[in-house]
Each structure stands twice: as structure tokens, then as C-alpha cells.
């Protein structure tokens, strides 16, 4: 209904292969960015930042990373939490031991460390598939946090095993208030999301999807599984690692490596299942959705006058997650992203049904 596409023809391949080929979409995205960078800072409260928006950004980035591995390359991983941990611990150590290092450099290096670890734990994917691999990644999930706790060096032999983030500055910009942290995180996530989009629409993405859709055919047209899979693990872990670093730096502030446990892994997995496997947008939608549920559960029952114990809420939350996963897998395996896409198609051909 809102679309007026007639006359928006493409006279060059760059134009035809742009991320947003329709003018109306470009406007929409521009508005979205405006809202994110200007609108939210104007209206959001500190509670909103810390309770929803900042964790949303971090988890969305983690989900994005997992989506590259699972959604695009078809390799299931239950090790997301652990790789976030790697990123966080690496970033903390870098920031702590080399204070003069630029914050962005810290993040990138942390990401690279995570990528390296990811590749190591990705090796089994060359021999095994599907849930075998899922189990294998559990090894990472249980081994790495243990490693960080047991080997004191990682936490600088802190007796409590807690690592606390030093003050953050970026090119002289002090990042203290929630809003500043938000803007910093937003910047990082935006850039990485764009990078991810670029990856999946060019060679690497095609390589991954080929492996996902039919690995035999992929190999026969000359795609080397080892390259495809390990690159997916590397890139995915890179994103997840940075997500972990952000999670620690702009969200938690201080944490124990144990915190990066299997629950985070499952949370990320749920985000991409509900958001949409194989969709950048889906990672964000999913993250938002999953983070809203608990808030919803804590807020709504009182409103409708029934009070639940925190335990009860916790349990219901777990239940709801489980139910939602099954529901989405049955009703819309491609998640919210597909629903969004369908809605968009409807608008494009309005008033026609098809």
C-alpha cells in the first residue's frame, strides 16, 4: 500500500544488488536509524537502557553471530555463551593489561581471539553434522568457563574471580552514563550488522548457504567444506566474541566467567529460532522478543491483579520459552523475519492478495 515501485528501475548491477532496492525501504531504514541514534536518547530512561535496550543490543549481536553459523551455514552450536565469555575475558585482559589500547582495537582483538577459539571447536564440524555437532559444542560450553575460573591469570588472580571493567574512553570520549554506553554499543552493532549483511550477500554467504542447503552439491561445484565451515565458525565467533565483550563492558560492568553459561547459549539459540534462521533482521527481532518476555511476565501479572512469586515467574518464563520455540518451529519455522517479509510483500502488492 505504501509502496510506489513503478519507475524504480535499475540501470546498473550495483543498483540492482543494493541492500535496499526500493526507495520506500531506504526511507524507512533512514527513519529507523534516526530514531535509534537521536530519538531513543531523547526519550529513554536509565532503567530502559539497562533493563532492555543495552542487553538487547548485546544479545542481538550474539544472536547475529550464531545466526551466521546456524542460520546461514546450518551448523548448530550450543557454545554461544562460552564464546561470549572468551570475548569478554579477552577484552578485559587486553584493556586491563594494555590500558593505552584503543577501545575499538580491544573489541576487534577480542573478537579475533574468540574467532580463533571458535575455529578450534569448529574442527569437529568437518567430520560430524547436525546434533552431533551440537553436542560437540557443549564441550566448549563446559570447558571454557571452567578454564577461565581455574586458571587465575585470566582474572588476574582475583580471589573472587570477578573481573571489573576499567573506565572506558573512546578518542577522549568518556563512556559512563547508560546513554553513552548505549550509543557506543549501537555504533558497534550497526557497523557489524552491516558487515554481516555484506558477508551474506556475497561469496562467503553463498558458500555457507550452499553448505547448509546441500553440502554434497556444494563440494561438487568446488566449495571446500573445510573453508566454508571453519570460516563460518570464525566469523560467527568473532561477532559473538565482540558481543560478549560488549555484554561485559557496557551491560554487566563486572562479572564472573561462570556467568557465560549454557543458559546464554540457549537464549541466543531461541532468539534466532524465533527471530528467523538465516536472517540478519531476524536476529534483532528475536533478541528483542526474547528479552521482552521476562519483562512482560514480571510486569503484566500484577497489572491484571494476580501476583506471582519470583520463582513462579522464573518457572513460567522457562515454560513460555519452551512453548514459544515449539510454536514457532511448527507455525513459522522462519520466524518473525518471515512474518515481517510476508507483511511487506502484502503491502507491495496491495490491494491484491497475491
Amino acid at each position: 500500500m505504501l509502496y510506489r515501485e513503478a519507475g524504480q528501475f535499475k540501470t546498473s548491477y550495483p543498483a540492482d544488488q543494493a541492500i535496499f532496492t526500493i526507495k520506500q525501504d531506504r526511507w524507512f531504514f533512514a527513519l529507523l536509524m534516526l530514531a535509534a541514534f537521536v530519538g531513543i536518547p531523547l526519550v529513554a530512561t536509565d532503567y530502559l537502557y539497562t533493563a532492555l535496550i543495552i542487553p538487547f543490543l548485546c544479545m542481538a549481536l550474539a544472536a547475529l553471530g550464531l545466526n551466521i553459523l546456524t542460520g546461514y551455514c546450518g551448523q548448530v552450536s550450543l557454545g554461544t555463551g562460552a564464546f561470549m565469555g572468551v570475548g569478554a575475558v579477552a577484552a578485559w585482559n587486553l584493556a586491563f593489561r594494555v590500558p593505552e589500547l584503543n577501545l575499538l582495537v580491544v573489541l576487534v582483538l577480542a573478537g579475533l581471539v574468540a574467532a580463533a577459539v571458535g575455529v578450534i571447536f569448529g574442527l569437529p564440524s568437518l567430520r560430524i553434522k547436525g546434533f552431533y555437532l551440537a553436542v560437540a559444542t557443549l564441550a566448549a560450553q563446559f570447558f571454557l568457563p571452567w578454564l577461565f575460573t581455574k586458571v587465575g591469570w585470566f582474572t588476574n588472580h582475583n580471589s573472587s574471580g570477578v573481573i571489573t571493567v576499567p573506565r572506558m574512553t573512546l578518542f577522549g570520549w568518556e563512556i559512563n552514563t547508560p546513554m553513552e554506553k548505549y550509543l557506543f554499543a549501537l555504533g558497534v552493532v550497526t557497523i557489524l550488522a552491516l558487515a554481516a549483511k555484506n558477508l551474506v550477500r556475497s561469496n562467503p554467504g553463498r558458500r555457507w548457504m550452499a553448505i547448509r542447503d546441500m553440502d554434497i552439491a556444494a563440494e561438487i561445484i568446488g566449495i571446500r567444506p573445510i573453508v566454508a565451515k571453519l570460516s563460518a565458525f570464525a566469523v560467527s565467533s568473532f561477532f559473538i566474541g565482540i558481543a560478549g565483550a560488549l555484554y561485559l563492558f557496557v551491560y554487566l560492568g563486572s562479572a564472573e566467567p561462570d556467568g557465560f553459561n549454557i543458559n546464554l547459549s540457549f537464549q541466543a539459540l531461541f532468539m534466532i529460532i524465533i527471530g528467523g534462521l538465516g536472517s540478519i533482521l531476524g536476529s534483532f527481532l528475536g533478541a528483542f522478543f526474547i528479552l521482552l518476555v521476562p519483562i512482560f511476565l514480571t510486569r503484566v501479572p500484577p497489572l491484571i491483579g494476580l501476583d506471582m512469586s519470583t520463582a513462579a515467574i522464573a518457572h513460567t518464563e522457562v515454560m513460555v520459552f519452551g512453548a514459544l520455540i515449539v510454536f514457532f518451529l511448527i507455525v513459522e519455522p522462519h520466524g518473525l523475519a518471515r512474518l515481517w517479509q510476508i507483511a511487506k510483500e502484502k503491502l507491495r502488492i496491495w490491494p491484491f492478495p497475491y
Partner: protein
Amino acid sequence: MTATAKKLGDVMLRVENISLSFGGVKALTDISFDIREHEILAIIGPNGAGKSSMLNCINGFYHPQQGSITFRGQTRSRMKPHEAASQGIARTFQNIALFKGMSTLDNIMSGRMLKMHSGIIASAFYKGPAEREQIAHRAFCEKIIDFLEIEAIRKIPVGRLPYGLQKRVELGRALAAEPTLLLLDEPMAGMNLEEKQDMCRFILDVNDEFGTTICLIEHDMGVVMDISDRVVVLDYGRKIGDGPPDEVKHNQEVIDAYLGVQH
């Protein structure tokens, strides 16, 4: 004008005494034949004669226990499919093996993977070298799309396409690699007459315009006799015939095999 009009080059691929078995079950027994430059060679035979296994050996998906395959002078015993691909051997499958999640264009683009080199970093930035590469190869793939007359389905996910078109897209993906040897596993299986005619036309055009050597498996004898320069007949994993179509047609053993005479 038919493909037989052109002159054939010298041997491109030589198969020598290939034997292949899966846990005791013999799929191929002591097969030898060769494929010449620019020819269209058809491998025929009753079901379970080992035709697909033969192709799988040639492009390195199976590894024969005995025998050797010599492609363009280099002999190899074990090699991986992607290595075969990088040597210029492309193929299509009996039951379509397209990437269902991708559009027609992306499927064909993926066929050019071997020719595209921009890595993770470049691709992440996209603008610059990666984009230029994409454009260059897009242009090539568009020529294939035009050649196969599938403009109308360029951006449709292949999962939604009718069978006949999917076969065509798969051929497109194979062509995108600019192969020197093209293996087609039953390119016309399950097609109606019109689709078959188109497919024949495309196969001949490919062989003709690009001089691509083609080795195909086909059941439709009419088609085989029409388009192939030479026919190799397999039966129960053994080679029972090899020669020009009409010669093979009158080979007694072949006739028996097709009439199902007891062995």
C-alpha cells in the same frame, strides 16, 4: 544441423579398469573407456547398471578400489570432488541438487565460486574489490541466464520452481563454472516432451557454442541417439558396448541387456 557435424578432438579423459564396490557389493567391474575433446558421450544401461556410480568416480565423489582415471594427462587415484571441480569438471544430478534457499541467480553465481576470490574482509566491506568482483561475475551469469532463457525466474527462490525449470537452473549452475567436461546425470528425467526438446537444444548449444565436452546419462533412447556422438553401455557394472549410436543400437549384447535376457 546436428552435433555430429563437428570433428572430434583427442582423448580428454581416460578411464582404465575401474572397479568399485560398496562393502562387498560390486557397483563397477573393470570399466575402461575414454572421452574425447568436444564430443557428447552418452552412458546408457538398465537401472542399477552403475551409471551414476561411474559419474561419481569421474568427479571424485567415489573412489574406485582399482583402476585409474586420467584427466588431461594427469592420473589420479583419490581426489576430492572440489578438486575435480577446480580441474574443470562440472556436473548435474539425477535428483536435483540445487540450493533451495537461494534464488536462481544466486545458485548460478555459486557455480562461479571457484572463480571468485574476494575473502571475508573484502566481502565484509563489500564496496570496492568485492563489489567489482560480484558485478563482473553477475554479468557472466546473466549471459547464462539469457542463454538458458530463464530471465523471468531470475530472482525467484529455486524451491518454488517447477521441476523442469529447476533442471535448467542446475545446468546453469554447472555452466557457470565454464567447465571443460560437463557431466549430466539424467538431464531429462521426468520432463515432458517440450521440456526435453529445450534441454536437448541447450545441451547441443553448449557443446556447440562453448565447445564443452559432455558426458551424459540418459534413459530416453530417442534423445541419446539424437544428440550423442558416442555411446557407452553398462550392464550390471560391466561395459557391454561402446561406439557410435547406430552401431551400438545393433549390438546383440546391448539388445539382450535391454530386453532383460537372463545372465
